[in-house]
Structures are given as C-alpha cells and as structure tokens.
C-alpha cells in the first residue's frame, strides 16, 4: 500500500477526478497529439503562444490512466505563462525526476509536479506521466504529427 500511496498521491487523484484545462481550444495556434502505442492512450494538447514566446493558454483532451490525466492537467498549470524555453527546461527536469539515472531533489524547481516523483518506482508508468509533455514539446516545435512517447 505504501508504494501505491507514493504513486497515487492525493494531488494526482484530485487532478484525475477533475482535470484542469481539459477542453478543446478552437482558436489555438498550435496543436499536437501524444500517442502511447503500448497502451493505446492518446491525448491532444492545444497551445496559444504569444509573439514573445510566452505560452498564453494551454489545454488538453484525451483518454488515459490517472497518471497521464493528472500529468496533463498539472502540466497545463505549470507551463501557462512560461516561455517556450522555460517550458522545455521544465520538461527536462520533470523527465529527470520520473526517469533519470539519478533521483532528483523533489523541490528542484518542479513545484506541484513533484507529486510524480513516485512514478520512477513504476517504470511501466513513466510513459504515462510523460505523454502530455511529449505532445507539448511537439506542439511547441510546431509539429502537427502524432508523437509517440
């Protein structure tokens, strides 16, 4: 149970039950899909990026497990108002936390995203946690193709 508690922290369960920014965005200027061929989970991320490179709005819609839904939801809260470069750096730190060789300090600038630190004990779920981030990166790169995490 303690392992499960590490994975399914209450913040994750809350965002799974009530994901934030979970909507289509018809006036988005970028959109990308994330697809995990192993489990068939799929989600779309929409973005509005200002001329100064700041992400002014972000949303997602998709099907997936609690980890992928909560990760997408918390991602939208984390990257809104950040520049493209800041968002990508955040993804780098997030990825290091869930899948890096070395455990990172939970508070290494990740804020609420630190609730996903338990994922590294569940290697099969790393892709669930990163799915939305891969889609975000594709959208930022202006790619329209589906990316597989």
């Amino acid at each position: 149970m303690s392992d499960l508690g590490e994975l399914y922290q209450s913040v994750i369960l809350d965002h799974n039950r009530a994901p934030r920014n979970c909507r289509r965005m018809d006036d988005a200027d970028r959109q990308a899909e994330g697809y995990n061929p192993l489990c068939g989970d799929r989600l779309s991320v929409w973005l509005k990026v200002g001329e100064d490179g700041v992400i002014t709005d972000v949303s997602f819609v998709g099907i997936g497990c609690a980890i992928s839904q909560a990760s997408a939801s918390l991602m939208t809260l984390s990257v809104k108002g950040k520049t493209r470069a800041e968002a990508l750096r955040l993804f780098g730190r997030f990825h290091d936390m869930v899948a890096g060789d070395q455990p990172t300090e939970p508070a290494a600038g990740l804020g609420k995203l630190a609730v996903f630190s338990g994922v590294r004990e569940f290697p099969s779920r790393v892709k669930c946690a990163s799915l939305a981030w891969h889609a975000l990166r594709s959208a930022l790169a202006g790619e329209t193709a589906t990316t597989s995490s």
Partner: protein
Amino acid sequence: MPATQVRRGTALTPRYDVAAVRRDFPILSQQVRGKPLVYLDSAATSQKPQAVIDAVSRFYSAGNANIHRGVYQLSETATAAYEGARARIAGFLNAGSPREVIFTRGTTEAINLVAQSYLRPRLQPGDEILITAMEHHSNIVPWQLVAAQTGAVVRAAPITDAGELDLDAFDRMLGERTRLVSVAHISNALGTVHPVARIAALAHARGIPVLVDGAQSVAHLAADVRAFDCDFFACSGHKMFGPTGVGVLYGREALLEAMPPWQGGGDMIASVTLEGSTWAELPAKFEAGTPDIAGVVGLGAAVDYLSALDRGALAAHEAELLAVATDRIGAVPDVRLIGTAPRKASVVSFVMDGVHPHDVATVLDADGICVRAGHHCAQPLMRRLGVPATVRASFALYSTLDEVDALVASLARVRTVMGR
C-alpha cells in the same frame, strides 16, 4: 467444434489435482511484493513446468550440437531430439505426418510465412483475404502487408456486442474473390471460442483455404487439425507451457509442397551452385538457418506434459474457473464484463467505470496479482467494442479458485485507492 477431449480411465473422472499441477511450476511458489504470486496473464505467456525447464537445460548441458549436419554422435543425438519433438508435436496436433509440421519463431512468423509463401503468389488486385473483427494484430498486419504488395483487400467479418463472430455475415462475405480465410481459434482479448470446423466447412464449400490461429487454443483445447479440417494451423510454444522463440506452422502437405521457400539459407536447400539452387524436401524447405533447437526440444517436453494430463478433467477445471470468475468479477461494483460469448476459454476481460485499466492493474500488482491491461494487440476490436482498453485475467491449468478470490478482493479496493 467442441474439443475432442480424451477421458482416460473409468467413467468417473478423477478430481483435477491443481495443487499437484502447481508443484510442477517452480515460478508459482514465489512471493511478489510480499504476497504470493497470483499469475493471471497466461494468455500473454504461460509459465513453464520443471519438465520443460529441465529439457532445455539438459539439452544445453549434455546434448547440444548443430543438427542435420554433423557425422558425430552428439549431432546425431541432437538431430534425433529435434526430429523426435517434431513427430510428437505432429501427433499432438493430429497432423497427417511430421512433414506437415514446420518450426517457426512463433505464431506471428507462421502467419507471415503463409502470407508471403502461400498467398502472395496467388493474389491479384481486388482479391480478398477474410478475417474477423476480433483478431490479434498478428492475424491482421501480415495480411495488410501482402495486400499492399499485391493490390488485394483485407476484409473483416463483423462480431456481435457479446464478442461472438456473426457467422451468417461471415458466410455472406465469402465470395468469388476470397483467396484465404484466417481466424483465431480463441480470441486473445475476450476468450471467445470460434467454431473453426464450421468456418472451415463454409469456406471449403467455396474452395477457399482456411488458416486457424491457434496461439490461444492449444493450452486450453485439444487441437486437432484434421477435425478442424483447416489447411494451416499456427501456434506458439510459449503459450502452451513451452519456451519462447519457437512455434509451429501446420500445413497440408500438398499445399506446403506447392509453396516456394520463404527464407533462403542453410538447411533448406538440396544443392546450391552460384547459378541457382534447389530446395530441400519438407519440412526443411521452410526452416532456413540453424533453428531454435533447444526451444524445439523444450516444446516437445511441453507437449509431453500436456499429453500426460487428463484433458477432460483439465477442461472441467478451467470451465469452473471461468464460471466462478465471471460471476465474482462481474459482481464487483462498477465492473462491466467485455466479451460474454456462450463459448469461451478461461479468459475474463472487463472494465471498471471511472478507473482506467492501467490503474486497475497497478493496484492489483501491489497485491502480487499479474493481469494484462491494455488493448491486447487487438485495437480494431477495442474500437468495435467502444473501449480504449480492458483488464484481462487469463487462467491456465495451474490457476485456482483461491486466485480468483484474491483477484476479486483486490478489485474491491481499487476504487478506494483511486479515491473514487
């Protein structure tokens, strides 16, 4: 086609001794996450009895040599072990002759062999390959590849909401242009048992050959290629208590004789010159390169293990597991069973409202319970049934009613863990 089970001994079938069977499988006695391992993923791969492990180990410790070439005794012994396994597997499948048994890497390779060697030279643009809407990707994609190469078309017969083949629709889809029918004997995702003998009769009435994908069936039902009257039958060692990396293609001898080789290399030739080559006789024609000799020896041991069991008592045991698991899993709040065909193997697929199958499987894993969560390599079927994925518990000859209870108890707390 009901399985033709051999009942040994008197009319009183002895009670199936699952505890004794479990002692044959060393992996089952371990603990996972501090709990006894509950392995309910035998449709993905089955566990191996000690007899199979020993046969592989003995081959490498005392019998290893390449086959069909050495003039020394060790090679002759290895060849005898390899060909002896082929003969026993031919008997197990009730093939007409060992020449009809081709060793492959598994079911997938066997189907690809038929697609490329049998079917490809026969296909014209507009020809059709008929499958069903509930096939594993390995019984879809090889046909799509050969269709793309030739301009042929893959068609899928529809299924009912319960996960049963619509046999009338299937019959109507057999047409002038149908060149091959390929169906699973048992659906890996739902456990539905297809009436393969009936399917073969309908196809043969129009002169269409039939491949039966037996990957899921050999561990549960007696596989009798002559009773099925199929033209090809494919299965995998690792799903029938044998090693990974080895499988079988059964083909009618006349068809195999007429087919060109699929892969070229050593062991499949009669003579080679730089100008051209001639092919070996069956079955060597289709076994280019050094095969998985130890795997074949292990598969032979698996067939011996299965053959020594009372298949009637085993079938009764699995039928009881299926009935009890269906009732008890179906009674868990918010669980919906996916696939409720009247004829099923011991596979229970389900979803839980509001909880993704991966999360269900992770909670079960914390209790040492192994199930599959996902699309089961059957994405078109998932789409047809309107679910992105399911949880699948699949049972085998070593599964117990206690394990069903452990699964149900763990399922009952999924919603609490997930805060629902």
